[in-house]
């Protein structure tokens, strides 16, 4: 066995220096000179005797996955474990442990460590994706039957909670208008703040702004809602409206836009700014025509994340938009509805047909955000720095 390379990387120099301990740990490979290369005087030469290494076959990871799943299911069934979650956890643990053990025996310590890290990454990936996939699956499976043209184009006006029928047109309209208004307020302010922080901001003021943006990121949505409620509705005396909701949403949206845009602008190489300035282009035009277009892809992604966040907000909507069963296409006056609020209301009714409507509306909300996302990505790709020859 050619374990020499492993000694170079797999163990600390302290263990490596002791030689024989390492040999035992590596599963009885020939010790002494063979392991550690040739000795010349007192200096050890770490050059390996051969460059080839025993490798696990390519199907090994797949076999390990299948095997550990089998073990998980088997222990689950034999041990009488109810929860599938436990089966999965056992399988995951067995997979990580078995991969490490098998690789240690066949390939050696360094590769085993490598595979251990890789299997942990994969396991975490699966653990992370499972809830997401099941959430999507559940929403689609339960929501699809309720979604129809009628559902999308009618309101709940005159429909009682236990009755079938009704629709989400009023809520969809409310969400679109509120999100749009919030974006119109928050995106320009957020972008300009980020431009200020990256391109102009120096010293105290910039640090203060950064600090308050960070603080704003942590504002709970209900607090933003209460703030607008006390300012806009109680102090200034305006009534409930989609616009009041949009104000609260824009407070939630702004810091996310600022933060993500700031990071993206920082990634634009200073060389590009200098190249533009050296052509005699004024700074504001450099920012507008060179810096922003270069970062547009990342900025769009950040804005979309912010949009997705506020499109699902319920608390400020309850406080400020109030909710309504009727179509109100004027966001500046009177109560409106929105998709998350609609889901909440329907769920609270607790009747069969209301549940169906809630699931269908949830599906529409997810689809709405996804479509927005795809459109934004399309724009970003169309505008982003071009590669290729």
């Amino acid at each position: 066995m050619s374990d020499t390379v492993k000694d170079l990387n797999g163990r600390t120099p302290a263990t490596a220096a002791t030689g024989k301990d390492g040999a035992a740990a590596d599963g009885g490979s020939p010790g002494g000179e063979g392991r550690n290369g040739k000795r010349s005087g007192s200096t050890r030469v770490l050059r390996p005797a051969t460059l080839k290494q025993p490798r696990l076959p390519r199907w090994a990871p797949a076999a390990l996955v299948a095997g550990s799943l089998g073990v998980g299911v088997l222990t689950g069934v034999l041990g009488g474990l109810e929860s599938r979650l436990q089966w999965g956890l056992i399988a995951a643990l067995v997979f990580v442990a078995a991969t490490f053990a098998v690789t240690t025996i066949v390939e050696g310590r360094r590769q085993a460590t490598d595979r251990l890290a890789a299997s942990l990454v994969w396991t975490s990936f699966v653990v992370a994706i499972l809830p997401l996939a099941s959430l999507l699956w559940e929403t689609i499976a339960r929501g699809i039957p309720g979604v129809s043209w009628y559902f999308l184009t009618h309101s709940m006006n005159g429909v009682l909670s236990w009755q079938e029928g009704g629709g989400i047109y009023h809520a969809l309209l409310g969400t679109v208008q509120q999100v749009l208004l919030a974006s119109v307020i928050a995106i320009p302010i957020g972008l300009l703040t980020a431009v200020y922080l990256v391109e102009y901001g120096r010293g105290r003021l910039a640090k203060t702004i950064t600090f308050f943006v960070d603080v704003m990121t942590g504002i709970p949505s209900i607090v933003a809602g209460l703030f607008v409620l006390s300012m806009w509705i109680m102090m200034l005396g305006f009534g409930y409206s989609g616009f009041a909701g949009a104000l609260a949403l824009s407070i939630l949206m702004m810091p996310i836009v600022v933060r993500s845009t700031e990071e993206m602008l920082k990634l634009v190489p200073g060389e590009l700014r200098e190249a533009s300035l050296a052509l005699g282009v004024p700074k504001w035009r450099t920012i507008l025509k060179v810096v922003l277009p270069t970062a547009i892809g990342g900025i769009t992604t950040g804005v979309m994340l912010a949009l997705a966040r506020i499109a699902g907000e319920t608390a400020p909507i309850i406080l400020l938009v109030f909710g309504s069963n009727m179509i109100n296409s004027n966001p500046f006056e009177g109560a409106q509805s929105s998709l998350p609020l609609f889901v909440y209301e329907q769920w609270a009714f607790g009747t069969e047909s209301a549940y169906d409507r809630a699931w269908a509306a949830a599906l529409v909300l997810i689809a709405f955000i996804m479509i927005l996302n795809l459109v934004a990505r399309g724009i970003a790709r169309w505008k982003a720095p071009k590669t290729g020859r």
Partner: protein
Amino acid sequence: MAKRIDVTGLTAFYGAHRAIDDISMHVEPRSVTAFIGPSGCGKSTFLRTLNRMHEVTPGGRVEGQVMLDNEDLYGPGVDPVQVRRTIGMVFQRPNPFPTMSIYDNVVAGLKLNGKFSRAELDDVVEKNLRGANLWNEVKDRLNKPGSGLSGGQQQRLCIARATSVEPDVLLMDEPCSALDPISTLAIEDLISQLKSRFTIVIVTHNMQQAARVSERTAFFNLAAVGQPGKLIEIDTTDKIFSNPTQQATEDYISGRFG
């Protein structure tokens, strides 16, 4: 078009750090002036003070006088943007705008500063790409992104971009240090052609290059790390390379230090 530059008592700072100290020299029009010297001696800083790019760096500050023909670049009421339109710059690393095509890169300086007709722009693109010896290589793919070109081509594209605004002076900050010998040769040929139209100042670490392309050479040095860089001497390139007045110059050129 090409103009003469007279520098008197120029000192540049980065914050409190004095980067170059009390430099005076003149640069002849329609010729190439090379700056040589060890790393950190302030060649690039000095070059950047010549088109007011130094002050773009946070903390960058300049004292002294730079006369372009009869106008002081650091005089009151002088707009740095106008200075940079008059004195163009090519950087060490090729930096074409990644969002723009080859065509748009060449005319970026024009398009970002005003309105031009398509026919005008077409002329400018062809003239400057020909001037940069790049036309034949890219004429069939002007609408492809500039970042798809090789390093040497990108640098020539950047030179075309710098010349397209018809500056009086062209500053080059080690324009060949990221390029292979063949691309370097192409750029050097280009420099000798461009000097009929522009005043050129080039910073280089390559002394053969200074000897090949320049009429006059300035040698910069610094007493020790952390000390400000100083101009040791400036003279015709022949004189500097064959019979310099200062011992330090001779030591540097003959490779005895630095």
